[in-house]
C-alpha cells in the first residue's frame, strides 16, 4: 500500500517534469490569474487553461496521475490532466469503493475493490469525467482532461500561475465543477509576452453546491440500525396520495 503510494507520487512528479522540460528551453512567458466567485471570494479548484486559437489539439501524452479515495472522499476534488494520462485510483480506506463515471469524456467502472486496481484508467479524450462511488453518494470527484498542455489549478487563495508558455495569442478559459454561465465569461483572449507575466481576473458564477453531505464518522455504525425495514416503505406507500 505505502509502496503504491510512493510509486504514485513519483509517477506524478515525473509527469510534471516531463511536461515542463521542453517549455523551459525556449524563451517563454507566463500568466498569473486570480479567480473569484460571484460573491468575491477566492475560488479554488478552478482549472485555468490557455489554448492557442485555431491550433490543433496537442498530441496525447502518456503521463500518469493518481486520484485517491481517502476517508470516503476523492482526493483531489479536481484532478487536471492532459489527454492520454493514465490515472490510478488507489483506495486508501479499509472498505471497498465502487468508482464509476458515465461522462462522455471517459466512461468506466471499477466495481467494488480494495487497494489499487491493477490497471489504471487512461483518459484519452478531452473533457470532464465526473467520478462517483456507487455506494457513497456524496463521493464526487472530477478529472479535467485537457487538450492543451498549458493549464493549472487555482490554489486556496484563488490564484494560479502558468509558466513556460510560449509567447503568442491564446484563449484563456476557466472551468470549475459548479460553474455556470455563458462561455463569453469563462473565456478571455490574452496575449502572452516574454518577460512580464500576463494578468487575468476571472469571476466565476457558481451553482449552489448540491452534493450530498458526507455523513459523520460514525455513519456506518448508525446506518446498521436505521436501514431496517427499508423495503417496507414501498408497501406502506401503496395507495398513498
Amino acid at each position, binding site marked *: 500500500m505505502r509502496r503504491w503510494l510512493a510509486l504514485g507520487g513519483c509517477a506524478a512528479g515525473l509527469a510534471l517534469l516531463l511536461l515542463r522540460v521542453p517549455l523551459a528551453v525556449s524563451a517563454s512567458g507566463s500568466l498569473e490569474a486570480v479567480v473569484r466567485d460571484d460573491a468575491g471570494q477566492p475560488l479554488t479548484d478552478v482549472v485555468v487553461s490557455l489554448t492557442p486559437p485555431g491550433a490543433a489539439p496537442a498530441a496525447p501524452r502518456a503521463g500518469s496521475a493518481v486520484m485517491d479515495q481517502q476517508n470516503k472522499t476523492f482526493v483531489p476534488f479536481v484532478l487536471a490532466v492532459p489527454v492520454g494520462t493514465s490515472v490510478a485510483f488507489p483506495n486508501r480506506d479499509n472498505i471497498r469503493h*465502487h468508482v*464509476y463515471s*458515465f461522462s462522455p469524456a471517459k*466512461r468506466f467502472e471499477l466495481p467494488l475493490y480494495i487497494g489499487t486496481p491493477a490497471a489504471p484508467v487512461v483518459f484519452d479524450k478531452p473533457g470532464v469525467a*465526473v*467520478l*462517483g*462511488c*456507487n455506494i457513497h*453518494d456524496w*463521493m*464526487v470527484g472530477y478529472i479535467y482532461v485537457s487538450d492543451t498542455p498549458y493549464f493549472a489549478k487555482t490554489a486556496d487563495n484563488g490564484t494560479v500561475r502558468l509558466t513556460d508558455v510560449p509567447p503568442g495569442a491564446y484563449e484563456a478559459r476557466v472551468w470549475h465543477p459548479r460553474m455556470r454561465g455563458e462561455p463569453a465569461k469563462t473565456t478571455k483572449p490574452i496575449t502572452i509576452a516574454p518577460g512580464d507575466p500576463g494578468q487575468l481576473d476571472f469571476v466565476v458564477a457558481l451553482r*449552489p453546491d*448540491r*452534493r*450530498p453531505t458526507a455523513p459523520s464518522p460514525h455513519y456506518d455504525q448508525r446506518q446498521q440500525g436505521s436501514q431496517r425495514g*427499508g423495503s417496507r*416503505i*414501498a*408497501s*406502506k*406507500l*401503496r*395507495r*398513498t*396520495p
Partner: protein
Amino acid sequence: MHFRSFRSRLVAVFLGLFTLIQATGYVVVAAFVRASAHQQVEDELRLASTLFARQLDDRSRQLVAATRLLSGDFALKTAVATADHATTASVLENHRRRVDADILILASLDGAVVADTLRPTQHATPFPAPRLIEQAEAGREASDVVAIDGRLYRLAVVPLLAPEPIAWLGAGFVIDDRTAADLRRLSGLQVSFVARDADRVTVHASTLAPADRDALARQLPVGRKAGRLELGGGEQMLRIEPVGQNVMVVLQRPLAEALAPYDRLLLILLAVAVAGVLLALLGAALVARRVSRPVLTLARGARRVAAGDFTTAVAIGQRDELGELAATFNEMVGGLRERERVRDELERTTRLKRFFSPQLADALSAGDESLLASHRREITVVFCDLRGFTAFAEAADPEEVMQLLRAYHAAVGPLVFQYEGTLERFTGDGLMVFFNDPVPCPDPAARAVRMAVAMRDAVAPLLDTWRRRGHTLGFGAGVAMGYATIGRIGFEGRFDYAAIGTVTNLSARLCQEARDGQILVSQQVQAEIELFAETKPVGPLVLRGFAKPVPVFDILGIRAAPTPRAVSRATP
C-alpha cells in the same frame, strides 16, 4: 264575576311571566346550542383537514424517500447514462413493481420524458409536472398532486445522480375513489379530491355520487377554506384543504347529520319548557284559587254586612295578609255591631227619657221593654198646676208666659226625676206624674207626697216673684192612689205612656179643688203617709164624676225624721 276575572288575570300574569322566562331561556339556549353545534362541526372538519394534511405530508415525504431509494439503483443509472431507452423503460417498469407505485417516469435534464411506465410508447413528450423538476433542481423536496391523463397522482421527483444529476425520476401513486373511500373510513367524512385549472374545477376522486360530484364542481367556493354547499343529502359543511399546487381535498359533512344530536337536545329542552309551562299553569291556577277563595269569602261577608247582618264573621284559616284582612274585617263588623247596639240603646233611652227619670230610662233601656206593655197596677198619681194661669196667660205677653213656664218647669222637672216618678204628660202649667210604674217601688204614696211638697217648696219663691209683678198665681196639687191600666197609647212614631183609670181622674179632680198652696190627697194616700206627714182633713168633697163625696186631706208639711232624700225640703 269580578273576582273570577281577577283570578283569571292572576293566572294569566303568572303564566305569561313563566312562559316568557321559559321562551327566553329556550331561545337563548337554542341559539347557543346551534352556534356551538356549528362551531363543533367546523372544528371537527378543521381538525380532520389538519390531520389529513399532516398525513398527506408524511406520505409525500415517504414517497420522496422511496423514489430517492429507487434513483440510487446503479443499473438504472447505467441504463440511463448509456441512453439505452428500451432497457431504461424495462428497469423503470421493474422498479415500479418493486415499490408498487402506479407510475414511474424518467425525464432528461431538459425535461423531456425518456420513459414512462404509464405510457410506454410515448417519448420526448414534456414532463407532466415541470414545476417539480424546477423544485428538485433547486434542491427542494419535489412532490405534488398532479393530473396525468385525467387522473390524480401524488408525484415525487428526484434527480438521478451519477453522481451529478443525469436525469429526473418521478414516482407516483394514483389518487382515486378508493383513496377517498379509505379516508372516509378513517374520518366518517365525505372526501373529494378536486383540481382547479384556471376557472375549471374537476372532481377527480370522491366518495360522492356522480350527481353530487357535478354539484360540488359547480358550487365549490373559491378562495375560502370553509363553506356550505347544497347537495343531494341536504346542506353540507365544507372544509377545503390544499394538497397540491392546484389540487385540494374537500371534506364535507351533512349539516343535518351533524346537528342531529343537538336537534334532539333542543327537542328535549322544548319538551321540558312545555312541561314547565303546563306545571306553571296548574300552579298558577292553584295559587289563584287559594288567593281568591278568601277574597270571595270576604266579599260574601261584606255583602251580608251591607244587607245589615252585623253578626257576620268571616273565617279564613290563614296567617298571611289575607288572614289579617279577614281579622280586621271581623273587627270592623264587630265595631259596626257595637255602634248599632249603642245607637239602638241611645234611641231607646231617648224615648224612655220622655217618660222616666234618667236612671229609670237607663234601667229600662238596659232591660226589655215589656215593662211598657199594657198592664194593670196600683199606682199613685200626682196632678199639679198653677192657679190663675189661664187668666195670666190671657193677660200677659206670650214671652212672659213662656218665661214663667220655663222657670216653673225648671223648678219642678228635676224633682220628678229625683223622686223617680213617671212623667205622664205636660199640659201647659199642668203636670201628671205617677209612681210604682213601670218600676215598682215600695213607697209610691210617700214618694208622691214628698215630691208634691218639694214642688210646692220649689215653686213658692217663683210665685212670690211673679206675685210681686202683679200676677195672681198659685200652686196646687192632687194625689190619689188606686188601680189603673197602664201602657203605651198612640200610634207609630208618637207613643205616650199613659195611665187610664179612676185614680187619674181623682187626682186630677183633687188638683182642681186645691187652692193655692194646697196639696189634696185621698184618704187612702193619707193613710199611707200619716206617719211622717202632717195632714188636715178638708172634709168630704163632692167631685165631678164621683157619686159619693170623697174624703180629702191637705198636706201641711213633712214631719221630722224624714227619709234622707227629702230632708232639705221637709222644713219650709
